[in-house]
């Protein structure tokens, strides 16, 4: 019988840092022995001196603890899923889905591409969203609904009435309160299982590493070029996947950067001079555009977490809402790129306000003025 075995974080170093491995055996004990053959030392973590499962280890077959089945002799069928869950004292424990979660995520759980192993990966993942605005709103909402364990939100701004035409994280009663607080309340109202961490400050060269370093995935919903180059550079230097999106009027763009496979600088080596490309504040944006591009960004994050499908890597998706056309052009890693090229010259964060000739917006000048 071939079964999949979910490996919790504390044991992953034993299995090549994988979250799931395959094992063979007619029952649980045989499968665990097979794992020990594949990954010597594995059973030493699970068994006591008598060769019994240690008491701080729970083993589940298809989400049922084996003490409720036939213990180590529990028979296995092809395709069964075993989970090995150690009790941990405090901190981020192993993910055991509560009945509430099983109910909540049932439409995920029934899909073979997600299942309980995939849902646990989602729950154990974290994502940082740059900007709780037009793009950040749908991204944050869909990731929270999907059950991402920790969502960080960076935004220094307060909710303005003019945001409400498109920023679905905020409501009329939120006007005047910090966007991160409005976002946290809305996200937790949708899914109280999600830990929402608020970073109420502009992201800058001084704090970018410290903030981005806390998360697995970064989603860009920034509204200015300086922040986009900053986030790009920080993500590459920290080896974090960056899921990028931008919108203007009726146009949208989206792409995913995986470290070493091209970056924002490969796509656009330099920003436009100030005033050359208008911002949403200057040219406007159709509110519903945010949902299209933001939803694609959220989908990309979930695909990366689940390891399914083809990520939007080395491809730039162009969305023209007026003609209702989606097109894809190629993104290549540029060997000449100063950040991720063959002879990089950027090895630390630079002054992005100088690079872009425009300030990073902050509370006193939210549009960079």
């Amino acid at each position: 019988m071939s079964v999949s075995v979910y490996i919790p974080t504390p044991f992953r170093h034993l299995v090549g840092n994988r979250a799931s491995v395959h094992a063979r055996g007619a029952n649980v004990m045989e499968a665990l022995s097979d794992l020990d053959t594949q990954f010597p030392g594995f059973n030493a973590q699970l068994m006591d001196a008598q060769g019994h499962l240690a008491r701080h280890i729970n083993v589940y077959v298809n989400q049922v603890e084996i003490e409720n089945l036939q213990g180590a002799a529990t028979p296995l069928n092809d395709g069964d899923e075993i989970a090995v869950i150690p009790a941990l004292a405090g901190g981020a424990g192993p993910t055991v889905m509560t009945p509430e979660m099983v109910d909540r995520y049932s439409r995920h759980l029934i899909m073979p591409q997600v299942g309980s192993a995939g849902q646990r990966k989602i729950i154990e993942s974290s994502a940082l969203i740059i900007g709780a605005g037009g793009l950040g709103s749908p991204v944050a909402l869909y990731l929270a609904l999907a059950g991402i364990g920790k969502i960080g939100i960076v935004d220094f701004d307060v909710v303005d009435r003019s945001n409400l035409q498109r920023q679905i994280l905020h409501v009329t009663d939120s006007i005047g309160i910090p966007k991160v607080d409005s976002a946290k309340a809305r996200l937790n109202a949708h899914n109280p299982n999600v830990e929402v961490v608020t970073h109420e400050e502009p992201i800058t060269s001084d704090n970018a590493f410290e903030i981005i370093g806390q998360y697995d995935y970064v989603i860009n919903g920034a509204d200015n070029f300086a922040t986009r180059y900053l986030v790009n550079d920080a993500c590459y230097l920290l080896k974090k996947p960056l899921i990028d999106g931008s919108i203007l009027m009726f146009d949208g763009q989206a792409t995913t950067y995986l470290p070493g496979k091209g970056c924002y600088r490969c796509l656009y080596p330099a920003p436009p001079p100030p005033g050359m490309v208008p911002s949403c504040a200057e040219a406007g944006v159709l509110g519903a555009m945010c949902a299209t591009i933001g939803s694609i960004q959220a989908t990309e994050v979930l695909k990366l977490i689940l390891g399914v499908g083809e990520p939007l890597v080395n491809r730039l998706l162009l969305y023209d809402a007026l003609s209702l056309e989606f097109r894809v052009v190629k993104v290549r890693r540029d060997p000449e790129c100063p950040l991720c090229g063959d002879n990089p010259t950027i090895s630390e964060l630079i002054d992005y306000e100088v690079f872009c000739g425009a300030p990073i917006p902050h509370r006193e000048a939210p549009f960079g003025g």
Partner: protein
Amino acid sequence: MAITVRIPQPLRGLTGNLSTVDASGADLSGCISNLEATYPGMQQRLMDETGQIRRFVNIYVNGDDVRFLDGLGTALKDGDEVSIVPAVAGGS
């Protein structure tokens, strides 16, 4: 020689709001000159003072970035599709 050129929103003021226009030219440079003749101002939006493609504007021929082809010298033929894609920072 008919080449289809896709015009991004910020440049449609020059094309009477057309999202695609026809142009001709044996290479990209010729195509831009032809666009400039029909839609004055286009060349200045796409190229800098030194005659190079602006670094925040990408031009694709059949989905390939011309920076990785022959730049302005990229050869064009009947039926090719040229896409102009400027960097856009909007997210809020």
